[in-house]
């Protein structure tokens, strides 16, 4: 068999380990921002469970480093306590 390369590359596979934000701060993709009205909120935690990015904590803090502004939390909120507000130009960069 002809020698194609001197060194062997060995086993290489595509493994990724769970980690925070491996493609960077996806919050910069956001156009609309979820704003929580704490007076209307009944703490049902639908937003916490529906957020596809895990950006809402159980004590209802939103991580704007990674929130892409998809609006699922606002859509699912039964108390209509979350509204989507257009970002200011300086906030989105």
């Amino acid at each position, binding site marked *: *068999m002809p020698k194609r390369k001197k060194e062997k*590359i*060995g086993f*290489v*596979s*595509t*493994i*990724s*380990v*769970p980690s925070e934000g491996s493609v960077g701060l996806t919050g910069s993709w956001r156009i609309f921002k979820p704003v929580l009205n704490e007076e209307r909120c009944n703490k049902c935690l639908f937003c916490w469970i529906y957020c596809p990015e895990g950006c809402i904590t159980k004590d209802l803090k939103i991580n704007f480093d990674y929130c892409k502004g998809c609006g699922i939390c606002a859509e699912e909120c039964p108390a209509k306590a979350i509204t989507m507000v257009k970002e200011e130009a300086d906030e989105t960069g």
Partner: protein
Amino acid sequence: MRLVDTGNHIAAHAVRLSHVEVVSAYPITPQTQVIEEISRFISEGEMDCEYIPVESEHSAMAAMIGSASMGVRSFSATSSHGLAYMHELLHWAAGIRLPMVMVNVNRAMGPGWNIWCDHQDTLAARDTGWIQLHCASHQEVLDTVIQAFRISEDPLVTLPVMVCYDAIVISHNYMQVEIPEQETVDKFLPPFRSMWKLDFKHPFTHGSVIYPDDYEEVRYSMFEALESARDVIKKAASEYESAVGGYHGGLIETYQMEDADVALVAMGSIASEGRVAVDELRRKGHKCGLVRVRSYRPFPMQELRDVLSDLRAVMIIDRAISFGMEGPLYSEVKAVLYGKSDAEVYNLVTGLGGRDVTFEMIVENTEAALKGKMEQMSTWPTVRMNEHHMVSRRGLEEFWKEGSAQ
């Protein structure tokens, strides 16, 4: 134990002897008996194995990727359209380097709907990264399935292996086979120790996004693993011979090649018929031999050069066609001989959809080639044009006649 049984049932015995723990499969003619027999083994307590009755071949391979990812020895069986249906997942299984074994009973692709043998299904799955071993006898099916687990699980390889044998000719005919004892097989095939497996305590994803910076290295690693597989396949065959008994060649098997100046090259059961053709050609005074390609991927490049380079003529018999080109085995054997040999290289494309391939036909065409009455290109020696085939033409003519009248 000596058994007279179908090739399909024999394959099931090999799975039983290999301590397979998950079988995930969908029945398709002519493979159904393989998984029927495995179900029977499981229901009668002869196998400690989980059988997953899935709703399609795509799901069969998906479930197998799941079980192999958990470090479990897994098996499936399919054929023809089933193999085509799971094609995407063939790439998946090889791409994340999962050891597993699947039997593919070689059956023609439809339409026209056909449950008989040719190699079109397997050869279409050529570039998925799977190792492909082609068997020519019932005993070889048993021995190769057991060897396939060792090849697949070898740390230098860690790739899925497809064991292929011909529909009806091997799958449904009854032949005598020596079934080895469990203890003997256990000495040859140790329990599966996975290179990696999914683990809740150390979570990671396999087969995730990979950028241009790293993709080529992953593919090169697969390429290298298939190169390494050449020696692993040969070693598995010879160690099986000493541990269990039974040898059917490494990457190739040769017959009467010692003094040959003409060779037939074939895969699968045609190679068994080819032996009869070789005997007949020798009776007629031709120094003919036969080379059977046992491992189609990795392709036996050096082995074929060693046995074919100095010959006068090589006749390659293809049981598949690459439309717009020629017989696929023909192309590859020519590629291997390029710049290394002055042999004349001929090609018969025959036996498609279960068309009978007789030794008389092989002898007649090989003699024609040796007399210079055949061109060095694909020849279809068994294609007929008769009254029966005119029916579809007449149908067309009537259609056009009626169409123009309106």
